[in-house]
């Protein structure tokens, strides 16, 4: 990993050393965060798979029952019934935090089964249509919550993993190499300084002894 382009000075050494300590601490924390996110995702993903399967099955049942209604009553009559007023749904979304990731907590109140049409021109099958589609709606809150949670946690996990990788493979090695380089250069400078001092001392001693003669 390439070292940083810095001058090999003591002050730079101290700065890089501090950065390395920070990077190592950051790595430690992010590594922990990654583990927690993985555990949380594994936990929620089971729920998400379950609810997704339930919703798929319920959608299939609901569409099949609409087909039955079309066959028994005729599309025209079913559409004439569909002119009736639809009910509004009450949705409350409360944010909560999982390892700093904001995920929704969805409270979804479907209207209670209400009589919306007279029975004079309708078949029993229409009541079943209403029942099956209400069951679909009842599941949508939980589905929205779990799928959104999984998606957001997965996004955060990806981001965390990228940071962990960057720290582990780029920044920390780079800082370590830079520190090693600076240490080497500083040592080299010290050795040179020591050698120069010895040389100067030897020269001075020689000059001194020659004057004494």
């Amino acid at each position: 990993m390439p070292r940083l382009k810095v001058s090999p000075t003591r002050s730079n050494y101290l700065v890089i050393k501090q950065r390395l300590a920070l990077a190592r601490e950051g790595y430690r924390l992010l590594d922990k965060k990654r583990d927690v996110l993985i555990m949380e995702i594994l936990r929620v993903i089971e729920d998400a798979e379950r609810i997704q399967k339930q919703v798929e099955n319920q959608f299939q049942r609901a569409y099949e029952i609409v087909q039955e209604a079309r066959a028994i009553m005729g599309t025209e009559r079913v559409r004439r019934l569909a002119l009736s007023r639809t009910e509004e749904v009450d949705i409350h979304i409360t944010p909560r935090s999982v390892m700093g990731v904001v995920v929704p907590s969805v409270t979804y109140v479907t209207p209670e089964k209400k009589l919306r049409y007279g029975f004079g021109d309708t078949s029993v099958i229409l009541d079943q249509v209403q029942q099956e589609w209400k069951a679909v709606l009842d599941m949508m809150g939980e589905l929205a919550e779990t799928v959104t949670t999984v998606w957001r946690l997965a996004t955060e996990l990806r981001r965390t993993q990228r940071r962990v990788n960057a720290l582990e493979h780029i920044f920390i090695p780079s800082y370590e190499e830079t520190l090693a380089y600076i240490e080497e250069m500083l040592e080299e400078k010290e050795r040179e300084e020591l050698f120069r001092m010895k040389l100067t001392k030897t020269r001075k001693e020689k000059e001194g002894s020659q004057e004494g003669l």
Partner: protein
Amino acid sequence: MSTSLGITQYAGANARVRGLYSRLLDKDVWRELLSAEDFNAALEILKNTHYERVIRALEQRGGITLEQLERYLWGEAASNCRKVMVFTGGGVRILLTVWWQHFELENLKALFRGLDQQMDPNVVNRFLIPLGTYSTLPWEALLHERTVSGLIDRLRNTHYINPLRAAYPRYQRERSLFPIEVALDIRYYRDLARAIYRLTGSDRLDAKRVLGTRLDMLNILWAFRYRIYYNLSAEEIVNYTIWHAVRTDTQIIQEIALGADPRDILVRIWGEEAFDLSQLTGSDETRMLPKLELLLERFWRRLAQEALSGYPFKLGSLLGYLVLNELEVQDIVTLLEAKGMGWEPERIKEHLIRSEE
């Protein structure tokens, strides 16, 4: 006032009914329809029947959609009812007029639904069964009303006004059309019951047998639907049904509301031999109800067919034909829808009211 028609008066009506009855589809045509490859193939088969007129008229208007065809088939059934009525008078005419009005009522409900949702009148108009000049309601004016109260006001000089005025305050409170629709339905079927009981002698017997059975069927089905799908209380269920039909009354309705089994109710009202109760197996009432509905409709069809047999100059022949005609339209709609969805013949047969093949 005489409420029965003499033999000579029934002769005209009977001749008309015989002519119309001969146009109903026979077993061979039904077999062909069931075996048709798809919707278009079924349509081609229908072009060789008296329904050809309806199909060609739609083709000339620029192509057929299933929804249009359904609407026009119902319009044809309504028109056939008027064709029979022309030869009647007195109490019989009143009865047939009330019976015919269920087409008008269906249109009126579509109007209320569209208006409640502030839909474009042209869109709502496309949902109305074509009744031609037979309906005396001012449909153009009704379509262009902008409020439910305005629509009710327009109907002030009709027999619909009383139930509408009574139901309107609750509609305003609950913002639901259910009070209006149920009020119209109950008023309609009470009028039908009244028209039946206005008749005397064999006319009354025939009317009770054919149309009275319809009242009883609906009473039973409505009561079960209110209990099973909507968990209404016994008081509410009694309130939203027809109090005095022919064989069903508030006592039976209360028993249904309190949990009576559908099979027990059928045996109690029509006897053990009337139905094949093995078709109502299982304890899941929500699954049983659609089968109950089909069982009752098939029973009604058998009664209508029987009413056409024997001595011809009677009210039973007229009513029998009218019921068979409407049930045939319902079966054609079922078949065409099923062919459009690619259903196999065996699956289609399970949903047809006509079940002798």
